């Protein structure tokens, strides 16, 4: 058994983002396929373009604080992704950064609070509720699962969050979309997994893998 990880460093966050970027790149075609069915066939290329820019930013700068790191990530995504996912992912990271302001080693509860702030940013921007068939369907349950396991350390809490996100992602399949582009399909949106919920699940899975 590994150690219980209790604090996360800026470097570890960098590793998380690189891992997420790699996962997105490997799954870009799959994400775009999901978006073809109920959207406009660009979610994979949008996220891939954005995360490539994030990796370039990581390569170019040494970040001293989590705050500075996540603000840069958020701004980079806002500036390069576009579409719905650009402002949503961008806001998530900007809020994550604000929430971690000042801290350099982040505890499990601090990380939990930061993730919640990030997701609240997404909700404030996109006004989606659980059940609307969006990334919020993966993110909300993930927050709750994280909080329930927060006492067991970052690794366990993120593992629980990733598992809950995956379940939330799967739960989008039967839903009729009420937000985003899929809502234009009405009843025809049912039976397809939401691309944004799929990529946010990867975000949490990358975190669980990189921050343990």
């Amino acid at each position: 058994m590994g150690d219980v990880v209790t604090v996360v460093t800026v470097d570890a966050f960098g590793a998380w983002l690189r891992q997420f970027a790699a996962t997105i790149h490997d799954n870009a075609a799959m994400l775009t396929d999901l978006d073809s069915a109920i959207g406009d066939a660009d979610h994979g290329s949008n996220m891939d373009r954005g995360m490539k820019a994030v990796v370039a930013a990581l390569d170019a700068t040494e970040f001293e604080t989590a705050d500075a790191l996540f603000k840069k990530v958020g701004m980079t995504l806002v500036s390069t992704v576009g579409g719905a996912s650009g402002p949503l992912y961008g806001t998530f990271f900007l809020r994550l950064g604000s929430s971690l302001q000042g801290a350099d080693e982040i505890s499990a509860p601090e990380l939990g609070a930061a993730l919640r702030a990030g997701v609240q940013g997404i909700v404030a921007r996109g006004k989606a509720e659980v059940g609307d068939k969006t990334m919020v369907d993966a993110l909300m349950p993930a927050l709750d699962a994280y909080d329930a396991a927060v006492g067991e350390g970052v690794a366990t809490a993120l593992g629980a969050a990733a598992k809950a996100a995956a379940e939330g992602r799967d739960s989008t399949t039967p839903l009729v979309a009420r937000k985003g582009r899929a809502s234009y399909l009405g009843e025809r949106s049912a039976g397809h997994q939401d691309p944004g919920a799929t990529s946010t699940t990867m975000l949490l899975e990358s975190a669980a893998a990189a921050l343990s």
Partner: protein
Amino acid sequence: MKKLINAPADVVQEALLGFEAAHSDRVRIDHDNKVIYRKDAPKQGKVGLISGGGSGHEPMHGGFVGMGMLDAACAGEVFTSPVPDQMMAATKEVDGGAGVLHIVKNYTGDVMNFEMAAEMAAADSGIEVLSVVTDDDVAVQDSLYTAGRRGVGVTVLLEKIVGAAAEQGRSLNDVADLAKRVNDLGRSMGMALTSCTVPAAGKPTFELGENEMELGIGIHGEPGRKRLPLASAKEIASMLVDPIVGDLPYGQGDSVIAFVNGMGGTPLLELYVMYNEVAQLLEKAGITVARSLVGSYITSLEMAGCSVTLLKADDELVSLWDAPVNTPGLRWGA
């Protein structure tokens, strides 16, 4: 994928280079920000008009930059709304002291990115920015709990009409009110005979059988509300016109600007066949066509299909429609 392109990732950038080479008499381009500017922007004292959206809808929006229409258009990746940095840059560049209007099509991505840009512009520069969101697509049910209707064909007519008003020196509030009025008076509906292929995706967004069509599509190659057996031009015209006319509603004695739009892969010959049907339906309904527009102006890459837009038009709107315009995509009186 059969397209006249080089690498899919370079399509937008290269098309902008080609656009600039072809139209440098009327536009200039900031290639870093992918913004097309009217050559003589900013016009002092004139409200600046900015629009933008994903690429793949040409000539919209870049083709509508010029005298009597837009001051700037921000080009996103194919079918992906542009990012706030682009609208920010454009807002600062076109402001001639009379404020700036953002013309935004109602898609979650477009709305959020323009919103962020407006927030940033307000914080950053103090330029007065108002926004109008177009949402004219009757294929989508409007509701408080959903993303609402899409912005489609009315956007073209609105950019022309509001562009003429801005050119006359009207105030930002006036121009924004007019824009909302135009949006409220317009309705659209579209259909597709084929899907289209996003260059980066490399294959058609959806598959459609040889005897099928999609009704109620948008402009992003997405499937529509319903898949139906292929129908005749006459039947299709009814499927598009009836829900539009019933929605606003339009009726006996109304006067409209009628717009039959091609989705990109449909030739003009067929659009005129469609317009013949649409004109007959309107005549039967006692609706007068004050002006018409037939052609591919708001497209979905190489999708075959069409959309119909009707805009209830009083004398003011018709005279603004008739005012001179000189853009690569629409030109008259100049």
